[in-house]
């Protein structure tokens, strides 16, 4: 006998199918059976009452750090996946800078096995661009893809060598894998603690110029043109990077980009107001108001394809330090929706575009079968209360990470239910 679940009374927003309106989502045996205005509900069906809520495809995050293997005191695949579904994310791409790094099938398999055991969000491993993330030789992309990797990235560090980057983009074409890059010219960036500008000057902290990012973006746009490879630009934070991405798309190159909620919402002056709070320290750093404006506009007009959290948990050992000495990285999975909804309320982003940037657009960028409520698709669904007001209390995060610039802030918008394969993995 088949298992039936009705999600009733909610506003269904599914940009992949052009749906936005009051609909019932019918889930049968873990798959979307139907999304319709009127459906007869059999007595045996279970029901989620979604009145006043949004019902969307489960969110897709192309950029998370789950820290396992090697740094389980910061996060595990299970705790990270738990944080993901609490935030409405049903698919997350796990970066390769674990210990050991994910440059071989055994690490990929371990991550997948841990994810399967947790049974929460779908975890899609990302393999290394270079062996050992050393930036010297190509990793074995064929083996990584066969083991389950969906993209390649040395995230955490840039691919400094243009020659290696060229070969990575070329070689990855054999396996149709996107090469996702953290853009930072190491020489131009130098040793830095925040964005270079008036706020860094006042705080006496070493700044990284915006051009340390955009110069690398321009380089890789040129290399994407040279190679025809798939380039994905991670956590874009500057106006110059946005200009380069816009140009790449104008040229018709296979280039996509993501922006993180913190870069969309906060600036270096906000960091200055928070003092030297290391919950505001990440890479790339919070940029100027002009940069933030450019990133917001690029997300709104689709130049930047999607929102990705760069969820990067650390423990007090790395964070309870002088600002200069503290590690880069903040958590983001459990606050992303509310923070991005803030942009909608400010009139910077439409509701539909926000949902697209969290669902269909990231799925498309990495070629994932996710981010849709199309009939037959796995029933990965988020039910969201856009009016729920809550206070960010990091000690209540499902993530082991506690470092969030929204600590103590009042946010509006929260995920109430998350389904993966039709199973309720968050909410009741």
């Amino acid at each position, binding site marked *: 006998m088949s298992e039936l679940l009705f999600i009733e009374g909610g506003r269904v927003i599914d940009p992949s199918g052009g749906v936005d309106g009051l609909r019932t989502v019918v889930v049968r045996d873990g798959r979307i059976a139907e999304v319709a205005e009127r459906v007869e509900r059999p007595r045996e069906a279970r029901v989620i009452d979604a009145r006043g809520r949004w019902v969307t495809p489960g969110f897709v995050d192309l950029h998370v750090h789950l820290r396992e293997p090697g740094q389980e005191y910061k996060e595990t695949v299970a705790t990270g996946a738990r944080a993901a579904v609490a935030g409405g994310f049903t698919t997350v791409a796990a970066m390769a800078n674990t210990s050991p790094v994910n440059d071989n099938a055994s690490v990929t398999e371990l991550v997948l096995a841990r994810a399967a055991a947790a049974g929460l969000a779908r975890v899609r491993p990302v393999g290394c661009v270079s062996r050992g993330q050393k930036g010297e030789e190509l990793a074995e992309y064929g083996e990584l893809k066969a083991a389950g990797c969906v993209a390649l990235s040395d995230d955490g560090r840039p691919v400094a060598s243009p020659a290696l980057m060229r070969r990575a983009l070329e070689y990855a074409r054999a396996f149709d894998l996107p090469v996702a890059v953290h853009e930072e010219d190491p020489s131009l960036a130098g040793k830095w*603690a925040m964005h*270079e*500008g*008036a*706020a*860094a*000057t*006042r*705080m*006496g*902290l*070493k*700044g990284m110029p915006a051009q340390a990012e955009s110069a690398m973006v321009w380089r890789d746009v040129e290399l994407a043109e040279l190679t025809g490879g798939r380039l994905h630009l991670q956590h874009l934070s500057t106006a110059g990077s946005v200009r380069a991405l816009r140009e790449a798309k104008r040229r018709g190159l296979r280039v996509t980009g993501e922006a993180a909620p913190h870069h969309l919402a906060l600036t270096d002056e906000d960091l200055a107001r928070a*003092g*030297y709070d290391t919950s505001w320290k990440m890479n790339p750093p919070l940029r100027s108001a002009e940069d933030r404006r450019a990133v917001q506009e690029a997300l709104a007009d689709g130049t930047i394809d999607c929102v990705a959290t760069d969820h990067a948990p650390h423990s007090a050992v790395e964070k*309870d*330090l*002088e*600002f*200069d*000495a503290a590690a880069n990285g903040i958590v983001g999975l459990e606050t992303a929706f509310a923070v991005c909804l803030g942009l909608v309320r400010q009139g910077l982003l439409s509701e539909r575009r926000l949902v697209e940037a969290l669902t269909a657009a990231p799925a498309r960028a990495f070629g994932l079968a996710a981010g849709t409520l199309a009939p037959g698709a796995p029933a990965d669904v988020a039910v969201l209360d856009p009016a729920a007001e809550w206070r960010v209390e990091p000690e209540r995060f499902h993530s082991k990470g506690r470092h969030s610039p929204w600590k103590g802030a009042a946010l509006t918008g929260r995920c109430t239910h998350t389904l993966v394969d039709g199973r309720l993995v968050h909410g009741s």
Partner: protein
Amino acid sequence: MIGRHRHLIGLEELDRGEILQVLQLAASMKEVLRRPLKKVPTLRGKAVVNLFFEASTRTRSSFETAAKILSADALNWTAAGSSVSKGETLVDTARNLEAMRPDVLVIRHAASGAPRLVAERVGCAVVNAGDGAHEHPSQGLLDAFTLAEHFTRAAGGGPEAAPDFGLLAGKTVAIVGDVSHSRVARSGLHCLPKLGAKVRVCGPPTMIPAGIERMGAEVHHALPDAVKGADAVMMLRIQHERIGDPLIPGTREYSKFWGLNARKAEEWLSPGACILHPGPINRGVELAPEVADGPRSVILDQVQNGVAVRMAVLYLLAGGGEAHV
């Protein structure tokens, strides 16, 4: 308390009234320094810990002297040979020292924001004795004190006349050198405009940090433009590690274009303009010996006023009894 503040972390957060509160008390403290018996019982029974993670002779001795004149007990704790070399964190070090119940923790650290981090974690008062390129508030205060004293003398006050801080209004101070790495310049920029003075900064463009004009500075790259018409010139120390950073090609060229010697001083400076330097001086680099030791120099006044200003700071933050000094 300095006005509303339990700690002295920076001059950015102090308003004009709070700055004047310290400076006026420092003027009384300076009288104590002129006495044959330089000791008052004001802070008897209070303990001051000097926690220095960066080498410093001048500032540490100045705080130590100030504490001793006020009869406080002073403990010097330096990072070399300490548990820091064993990997202890700043917060742990500060908490351990706090367990010894000091009244004031004076801290110098290479990381901007370190004194603030400590202040958030300990119960006692914290004084920033220089953090990275952020602030050096007691230096900013002693510079303002020294300038006021100079202007008071220039206006006809005797050698021991109390400084009139109102005389800073309308004056122009040029700060010359590696502004990007200078906490002294930043504290000056937070202090002097609140007392009515204008600040110019000057140096090679590689040493002028982004957005400094938003702190109220008028930016110059040519030394004559910066010092002409100025009432005081503050020369900053060129740190040797900056050479080949690559902020400047070398000291020879730096000295030629941004150093001050007697000929340039006579040609460009106003007749009454004085010269300051936070020390230690690289003689022959930013400042020629004949200028450092010449009649315009108030560098040694700065050192003496530093003790008076730090006495005032310690007094206000250690919560001494009546100011019978």
